[in-house]
């Protein structure tokens, strides 16, 4: 049955569809005419059978049915359609005789909606039909909204229940659960289930708690709202949320509860998952920064209340960046997971905190806060919520360092990792979590500076080194990770041919928006040992850039990289360079190493083996700042050196003081006699160029030619300056070349 829309609602005049049934043709005709006159759409049938046929064929809003008819009478038609799907609720108006009480009763028994005594009071009949239609429409809306509710409840895995307590005036205690409610408990439709049976689905321990809640709620006639774990008959575990309100009789007595049950298992799982994601590190499963700070704050609260000390340990994996870069990120992640597992085993780590008990006096539940967390990258923090003193913290830190010593098998090979641990204690080293984190960090960096793989307690003296320097150091530690380091390149020029014959790579630090010059961070890097990873990075980057240039403009010279002498002492330097050039597929001679004369001489014995090996694989060595140290001439003759670089201090004074020209001349002559290439750095003007050239030094670098510039700019510089032969020094160089040739050709020239 689909009732025509209510005109009052739609604003459209819709004619209700009436099926009129009467065996009396005259009545049929008259009633039909009267109803049509009053806006109904009327279809006539002169028998019960015909009426049933028409009901099947066409939509009908209301049936007007004569009660007494030959054959299938009105009562039988009514009974039939009440048993027919879709017609159970069709409004039926039964027409009866004026005083026909028997028919009136039978009509109701047969399921008629209303009756009307046959008369010619047509307006009354029409009014009755409108009333019936409105009631039917209301009923239909109710049915629809009931169906919608059931559907919504079903989708929300929700059902309703009704419980009447015993002696509430409605007979013995009763419990009714809607079909949707039965589904929540995994029970088949139409199952008769008692409250007791449902309670038995709750596991033992929780059942007792639930019973207590139910008793409390009922005793106080308050609202019930609780989540209950249940085990369904098929063994599945679900969490059911129950919510109910008390119902009262006319005397104000609570007679029972009506409410809903809802399967909230998925929601609960999702909530738990969200909580976990928000508080735990996805890679290692350890508490994350947020969770760790939360725990540390609770631990400080407890410590203030009870009066004990708290320790915060900052743990950093040494040289993690190298492992990550060499073995790949996946291996790096595996390593972090393993380190996390080991660190965790060194403390009484609790994943769950007994939150409710934290506030209680005398409770030791703050100990459940103890944990190792991951702050990010390779930084871990251990929170020891109660320590007797620094010895306790040192003992744990010692265990942690020890635990990291065993090799870790990642990326198909064994890795040896160490860690640096900094310790700060509450209240001695800080009153807040932020202070403790910062100071444990300071202590940890002091370990890094001192050579790593150790622990250190925070002392105010560490901070005394100057905040700025500390910050710089801390930032420099992260500079490589964050790709903040860049290499700029200064070309080396052969002035005779006006050609670039190589470049020197110079490190710059792009920190925030400013470019930090090497003078501001290289000494600090030297001091802290960071120079090692920095130089290693520079070698890789230089090799990469050589490849990029070789592809873009056929670069086939070498990139000179400055190395501190301590790097030459390392046995893995050759291997490291080999790896750098192999990674980018450039020959070994693409890399040239510069070592200062002072550095070289300071530790000559230890450096010589590396120099020989490097020479063997084709990596040339250049002596930087030549002339400033006290080189042993005897050694110079035996060392595998290819080039010396005349220090800028001699170049600066060239042509100004006769002494500097003399030393310069001597240096150049010495180098040439040893068969070494000579290059002058710091060449700033044409005069210097001219003098150097005259002294026999043809290769130079300096601002006269170009400042150190970013790699892309170097290519532009070549295209716009060198190739079109536009720069002033090119003209001068040509002039020098010409005069040199003339000098050679003139009869008085000295050969």
């Amino acid at each position: 049955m689909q009732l025509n829309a209510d005109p009052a609602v739609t604003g459209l005049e819709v004619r209700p569809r009436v099926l009129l049934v009467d065996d009396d043709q005259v009545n049929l005709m008259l009633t039909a005419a009267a109803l049509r006159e009053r806006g109904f759409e009327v279809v006539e049938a002169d028998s019960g059978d015909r009426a049933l046929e028409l009901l099947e064929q066409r939509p009908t809003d209301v049936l007007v049915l004569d009660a007494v008819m030959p054959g299938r009478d009105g009562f039988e038609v009514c009974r039939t359609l009440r048993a027919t799907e879709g017609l159970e609720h069709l409004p039926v108006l039964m027409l009866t005789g004026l005083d026909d009480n028997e028919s009136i009763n039978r009509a109701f028994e047969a399921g008629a909606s209303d009756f009307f005594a046959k008369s010619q009071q047509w307006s009354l009949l029409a009014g009755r039909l409108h009333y019936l239609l409105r009631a039917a429409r209301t009923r239909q809306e109710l049915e629809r909204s009931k169906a919608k509710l059931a559907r919504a409840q079903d989708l929300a895995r929700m059902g309703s229940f009704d419980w009447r307590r015993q002696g509430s005036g409605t007979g013995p205690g009763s419990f009714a659960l809607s079909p949707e409610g039965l589904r929540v408990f995994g029970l088949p439709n139409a199952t008769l289930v008692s409250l007791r049976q449902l309670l038995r689905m709750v596991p033992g321990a929780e059942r007792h708690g639930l019973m207590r809640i139910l008793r409390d709620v009922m005793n106080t006639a308050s609202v019930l709202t609780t989540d209950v774990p249940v085990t369904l008959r098929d063994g599945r575990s679900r969490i059911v949320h129950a919510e109910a309100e008390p119902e009262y009789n006319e005397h104000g007595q609570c007679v029972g509860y009506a409410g809903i049950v809802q399967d909230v298992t998925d929601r609960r799982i999702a909530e738990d998952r969200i909580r976990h994601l928000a508080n735990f590190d996805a890679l290692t499963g350890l508490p994350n920064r947020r969770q760790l700070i939360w725990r540390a704050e609770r631990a400080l609260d407890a410590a203030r209340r009870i009066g004990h000390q708290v320790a915060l340990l900052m743990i950093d994996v040494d040289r993690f960046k190298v492992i990550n870069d060499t073995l790949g990120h996946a291996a790096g992640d595996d390593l972090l997971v393993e380190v996390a597992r080991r660190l965790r085993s060194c403390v009484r780590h609790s994943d769950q905190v007994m939150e409710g008990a934290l506030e209680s006096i005398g409770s030791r539940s703050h100990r459940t806060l103890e944990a190792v967390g991951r702050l990010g990258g390779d930084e871990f923090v251990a929170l020891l919520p109660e320590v007797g003193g620094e010895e306790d913290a040192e003992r744990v830190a010692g265990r942690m360092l020890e635990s990291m010593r065993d090799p870790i098998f990642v990326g198909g090979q064994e890795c040896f990792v160490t860690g640096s641990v900094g310790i700060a204690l509450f209240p001695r080293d800080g009153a807040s979590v932020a202070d403790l984190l910062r100071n444990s960090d300071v202590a940890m960096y002091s370990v890094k500076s001192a050579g790593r793989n150790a622990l250190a307690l925070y002392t105010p003296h560490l901070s005394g080194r100057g905040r700025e320097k500390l910050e710089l150091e801390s930032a420099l530690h992260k500079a490589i990770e964050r790709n903040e380091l860049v290499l700029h390149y200064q070309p080396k020029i052969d002035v005779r041919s006006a050609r670039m014959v190589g470049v020197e790579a110079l490190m710059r630090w792009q920190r925030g928006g400013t470019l930090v010059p090497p003078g501001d961070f290289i000494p600090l890097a030297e001091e802290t040992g960071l120079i090692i990873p920095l130089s290693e990075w520079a070698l890789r980057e230089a090799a990469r850039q050589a490849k990029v240039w070789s592809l873009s403009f056929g670069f086939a010279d070498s990139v000179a990289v400055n190395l501190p002498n301590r790097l030459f002492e390392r046995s893995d330097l050759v291997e490291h360079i080999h790896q750098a050039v192999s990674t980018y597929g450039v020959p070994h001679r693409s890399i040239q190493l510069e070592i200062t004369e002072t550095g070289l001489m300071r530790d000559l014995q230890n450096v010589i083996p590396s120099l020989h090996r490097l020479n063997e694989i084709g990596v040339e060595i250049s002596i930087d700042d030549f002339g400033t140290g006290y080189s042993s001439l005897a050694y110079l003759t035996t060392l595998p050196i290819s080039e010396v670089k005349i220090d800028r201090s001699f170049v600066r004074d060239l042509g100004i003081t006769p002494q500097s020209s003399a030393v310069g001349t001597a240096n150049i002559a010495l180098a040439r006699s040893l068969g070494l290439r000579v290059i002058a750095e710091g060449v700033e003007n044409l005069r210097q160029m001219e003098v150097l050239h005259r002294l026999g030094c043809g290769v130079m670098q300096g601002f006269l030619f170009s400042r150190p510039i970013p790699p892309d700019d170097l290519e532009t510089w070549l295209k716009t300056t060198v190739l079109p032969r536009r720069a002033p020094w090119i003209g001068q160089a040509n002039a020098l070349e010409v005069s040199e040739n003339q000098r050679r050709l003139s009869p008085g020239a000295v050969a």
Partner: protein
Amino acid sequence: MKSHAMPATHDIDAVALDRATLDEAALARLSELDPTGATGLVGRVLKTYALSLERLVDDFSRARADGRHDVLRRVAHTLKSSSSSVGAAEFAALCVQVEAAMGVPENAESSALLDALMIESQRVARAVQARLATD
């Protein structure tokens, strides 16, 4: 019951009398259902009534001969409301009496009542014909 003894005649007076057998007010109510007369409702109703009266009176006679009180009762039931609709008020009243009498077994042999119904039916039939002939 003023016309029970009247023979069936076709003189002017008789026609006038037969016309009077149908209640004018009732017929006026019928006309209200078709105020413009566009659908000829009154004529169609009277024609339908005449046909159904003829058929039902035949049924009635046969049922009486066969002693079928249930049929007599049903015919009386059917005739009463349509007769009332076309304004045959006296005939409708007779139908009510017969329907009631046939429902009670001890009243079944009220032949005077059944005779009266038969006679009145003829009067009503004539009145309808007369109305159809003049309208």
